[in-house]
């Protein structure tokens, strides 16, 4: 099994840490993992993206052009990565702030109201966990227990009291993700 994922959004949305938790979850189940961020000034406030690969075999390229799954969290990333999903692959996105919704019909598209749910839960920081929950519902590549273990590994101990909240967010995400119906009609 090899799963090649791009997670892309704004800096501050927890894109990189979501990738890190996913990578740690892979380690928890004895997989090979790689986490390759875009780095530099673009991380500070602008767009941020990270390529995460989980595999049962040695990982070749940590840097990719096409992906099994794209998790897209803002319009710029939609513009950049919608066409990077392999045919038959998955696109998961948060419609919040999206003007141009996905149009591809050769991939599976799901939407999840991550920002809205996080706001309802009263903690914007758990946004990325809601999204991760949604992703895992669609693509259960790592066990939920391993995600929790991965969280424990990637969070320093003084934040461990936040783990139940994160777990709750994961479950909200699992429940909230829905298939998105492509409406390709140019004139409605």
């Amino acid at each position, binding site marked *: 099994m090899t799963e090649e994922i791009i997670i892309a959004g704004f800096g501050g949305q927890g894109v990189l840490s979501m990738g*890190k938790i996913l*990578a*740690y979850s892979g*380690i928890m189940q004895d997989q*090979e*993992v*790689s*986490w*390759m*961020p875009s*780095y*530099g000034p673009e991380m500070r406030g602008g767009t941020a993206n990270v390529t995460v690969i989980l595999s049962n075999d040695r*990982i*070749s*390229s*940590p*840097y*990719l*052009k*096409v992906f099994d799954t794209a998790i897209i969290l803002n319009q710029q990333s939609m513009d950049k990565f919608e066409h990077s999903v392999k045919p038959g692959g998955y696109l998961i996105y948060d419609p919040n702030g999206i003007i141009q919704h996905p149009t591809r019909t050769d991939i599976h598209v799901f939407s999840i109201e991550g920002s809205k749910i996080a706001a309802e839960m009263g903690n914007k920081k758990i946004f990325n966990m809601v999204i991760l929950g949604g992703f895992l519902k669609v693509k259960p590549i790592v066990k939920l227990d391993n995600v929790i273990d991965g969280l424990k*590994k*990637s969070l320093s101990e003084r934040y461990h009291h936040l783990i139940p909240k994160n777990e709750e967010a994961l479950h909200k995400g699992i429940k909230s993700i829905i298939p998105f119906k492509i409406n390709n009609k140019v004139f409605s």
Partner: protein
Amino acid sequence: MSELKLMKGNEALAEGAIRAGVDAYFGYPITPQSEVIEYLMRERPEERTGMVVLQAESEIAAINMVYGAASTGKRAMTSSSSPGISLKLEGISYLAGAELPAVIVNVVRGGPGLGTIQPSQADYFQSVKGGGHGDYKLYVLAPASVQEMSDFVEDAFDIAFKYRAPVLILSDGLIGQMMEKVVLKDQQERRTDKEVIESCGDWATTGRTNRERNIITSLDLQSEKMEARVHRLMKKYEQMEKEDLRYEKINCDDAEYLIVAYGSSARIAQKAIELAREKGIKAGLLRPITLFPFPKQELFDLADQVKGILSVELSTGQMVEDVRLSVEHKVPVEHFGRTGGIIHTPEEILEALEQKIINNGRIRHHKTRESSIL
């Protein structure tokens, strides 16, 4: 105890240094390698092993601090990124001339000039063709994974002390910034001062006891002596070529086409080979792990087996010169690589292999031959 962790390449290198029992690290911040000194400062290695960590006032000061500690037999290292390595080259030349063991790490970014902070492999010439002044070479190790970032520190010091010569770890922004699973080695005991004096006492400046004084210098004003010194260095480099060449072959057994790539490009090229094989193209990868010594003989031999070779690196074509020299015109050799901080994709590499080698390369090669006959 060995430990499994998810780490950035730069952090794994820093942790590898602590665990390898390194005595001192001197550095100066520069993107994309600042995590090395940040990690070391955070980890308090002076408490863990007694390792000295100091943020120098410049890259120049840092490399000369390495020179100072190395001259006393201590295991000292520094790290930087391309523009900073340019500044260190004077010191690196001195280390080579004075025959001092030390480790320098370059987490390469795009150049020339201030360039870009994104990954690049355009410092190949600087690393293997001298860089600094004078007749010298560096033993150059090119890690291609976070695991190797961690492991190569100890390997580099082993070579440095075997030959009393500076060793360069040539990484890049991609390997430095990415995270992978890494198995950290057991903590090596740092040598005591007494052990340093015992093992390096015949050359290191540790204080003159009941022996002749030790002098560390790269200066020989008498030309005959200087020539002898240079020849002594050349002997070391010959021995490195015989005893310490490292490379890796992937899918080469039945390969009709060969890609040569090191470091991050080797990882991306490996994926390109997977894609090629899915299309029925029998491609293989030769990955030099040491850039000096370079796997000349292996390339020369592989040239009898394959129809063409693509040299891939994040530059406009530097290593390709060594590939061509090794192959001695037996088969066409072409270069492919993005530069300026752009990372080539596996698809781009495959396309280049098809266009430059499988299709055009052969044809153009024969045409050139014909026209030269005409």
